[in-house]
């Protein structure tokens, strides 16, 4: 078990401090996880619009406690991440404790520096996401929302209630994917590319926040229903080679098929099957870019008996054939321009 404890502040140098505690060095604000603790990276990016973002993609080989003691000054951390975890994930915000049994969460939320945060992530977890540090002044200047303060206060009061998490939708997942893999052929500074996508993710979140917190009273979707849908989503994506039947999913969640479709759309923004298909193709892209498996085999792995159906489905999502996408990815590897992975 590794325990990382610190007190949060706007100028706190998390990368170098964490590197020291892990017994390693971070060069140029990039921390590579030592093999003893896992593999992957955590890096800091200063964006042109003065936001500070942490981008990470790593696997843990040990249980990890992240203990962030509250700071002195109001400041915010925005988190947007996908965590695949084989065991229990525990989040404690002040006195509120939430557990997630897994196997995956993918969500965004905002945390105040004035709260204590403790997070337990079990060994074998894979984390991929961004954290953005945002000052109240930045929110005032950039979001220009008069009523934002009130809305933020109401949001932060919700604390660990499930409902304060926004499930990532198709667009934000796509943006996170783009953030992790900037194109090779970029002519402009990669920081601009990162900033534009971070900003679109923030827009997605703050637009949602405003809509939900700004309403006089929240519409009737209960915490139980959200938890049910989180369960449905898990089952839906458990095996990307075959879509479970809607009847089965609805039965397990103890709701009617119609109600499930409605609720699922509410929480995830897409009907279940479309959502499944979207993730299936994102997975295909990942395998394509990270392995040398032949396209046909990737299709087969994802349940396509017919290669041309697979290619068609892939094109629908990415507007490019799997083979073409791979050759683009390969030229990136050759020039060595890709980011540490």
């Amino acid at each position: 078990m590794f325990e990382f404890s610190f007190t949060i502040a706007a100028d706190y140098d998390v990368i170098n401090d964490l590197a020291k505690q892990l017994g390693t060095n971070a060069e140029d604000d990039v921390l590579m996880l030592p093999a003893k603790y896992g593999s992957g990276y955590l890096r800091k990016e200063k964006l042109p619009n003065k936001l500070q973002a942490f981008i990470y993609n790593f696997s843990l080989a040990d249980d990890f406690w992240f203990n962030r003691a509250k700071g002195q000054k109001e400041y915010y951390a925005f988190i947007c991440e996908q965590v695949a975890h084989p065991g229990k994930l525990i989040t404690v915000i002040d006195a509120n404790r939430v557990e997630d049994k897994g196997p995956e969460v993918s969500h965004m939320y905002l945390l105040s520096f004035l709260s204590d945060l403790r997070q337990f992530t079990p060994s074998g977890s894979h984390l991929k996401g961004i954290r953005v540090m945002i000052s109240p002044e930045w929110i005032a200047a950039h979001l220009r929302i008069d009523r934002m303060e009130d809305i933020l206060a109401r949001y932060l009061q919700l604390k660990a209630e499930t409902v304060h998490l926004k499930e990532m939708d198709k667009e934000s997942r796509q943006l996170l994917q783009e953030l992790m893999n900037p194109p090779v052929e970029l002519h402009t500074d990669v920081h601009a590319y990162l900033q534009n996508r971070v900003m679109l993710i923030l827009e997605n979140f703050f637009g949602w926040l405003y809509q939900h917190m700004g309403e006089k009273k929240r519409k009737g979707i209960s915490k139980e229903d959200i938890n049910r849908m989180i369960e449905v989503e898990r089952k839906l994506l458990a095996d990307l080679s075959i879509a479970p039947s809607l009847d089965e999913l609805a039965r397990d969640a103890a709701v009617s098929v119609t109600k499930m479709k409605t609720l699922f759309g509410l929480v995830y923004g897409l009907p279940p099957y479309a959502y499944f298909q979207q993730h299936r193709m994102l997975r295909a892209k990942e395998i394509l870019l990270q392995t040398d498996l032949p396209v046909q085999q990737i299709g087969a792995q994802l349940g396509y008996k017919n290669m041309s159906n697979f290619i068609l489905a892939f094109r629908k999502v990415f507007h490019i054939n799997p083979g073409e996408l791979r050759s683009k990815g390969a030229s990136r590897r050759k020039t060595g321009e890709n980011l540490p992975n």
Partner: protein
Amino acid sequence: MFHLEIDQADFHSLIKDLAAKFGTVLDQNTLQIPAYLGKGSIRALRLPNGLSVAVSNIAMDTDITLHRKQKEPAFYILGFDEIFIRTKMEQVIGGDAASLRPPVYSAAALHSTMFDSTMIATRGCVMKSVKIIFDTRWLAKYFGVEREDELLMKYIALKSKKLTLEPLDVDYKKYINDILDTDPGDPIYYTIIENRVMMLMERFLNRIMEKMEEYDLPHLQTADVFKMMEVESELTKEHLSALPTVEALSEKFGMSPTRLKKLFRDVYGYPIYEYFQRHRLEKARSLLLSGTYSVKEVGYEMGYRSLSNFAKAFRQMFDYLPSDIIKTRKYEG
């Protein structure tokens, strides 16, 4: 004929001066075009990241000449313009004149105030545009493009329209329409505009620098690019119930079907039918998102005779059904 001299380095000052000249008052940074000149408005925005942006939607009722004198220190003006031209329109940049012919000009272009520029628009021009002012320091800070950047300088100095024309395709238009259509009362209006302006700039800068690097459009003549703009506007015009056949288009534009298909693909990146399909479905999506129309209305408006074909095509592109948008809207109230 109306003549205007401009030299303002940001759009706020520009519309303020214009308002004084026209004897009107600005309302929420928006200038209404006086009736003797035409109809429409120009909205000036100062984005949180320091960009000055003008969003215009104007129909001209008179001939107008806009003259911008060379100015130091120089700054850039990046324009995304969709202009329907009735008789003619002319641009003169650094003494180099280009005549834009009817019926349509729909492209992005970057100018520097290092050069004098004149725009002559004639009566009947209808213009939707997003213009952005920035300087080299801003460009270096936000996009890492330095003042000395060779590719960009080459682009600015280029007299050949062939390389500087960047036709607006569905992807550009999506952002432009979002900018034109977003309600200024939206609580995160500035964020929405800024994010789309930045995406437009990112795409534009990368594409022109790629072009400058490759110089690989030997067979594309300026006249051909203009012709393709016409074809594109033919494909994307309102109330189009069916796609004109390639034969009809090739007859209309005086070239062989093979050549037409090839040129279109070279300029817009997609085969004609696929492009038409993307446009029409994007349009359908935005109509549905507006919340004013039913799936049925939108499907028929987009020229589908069968709603199930519409739903199928829609799902193919977006991975969800048209009705899902309506449902989602309902949930979110």
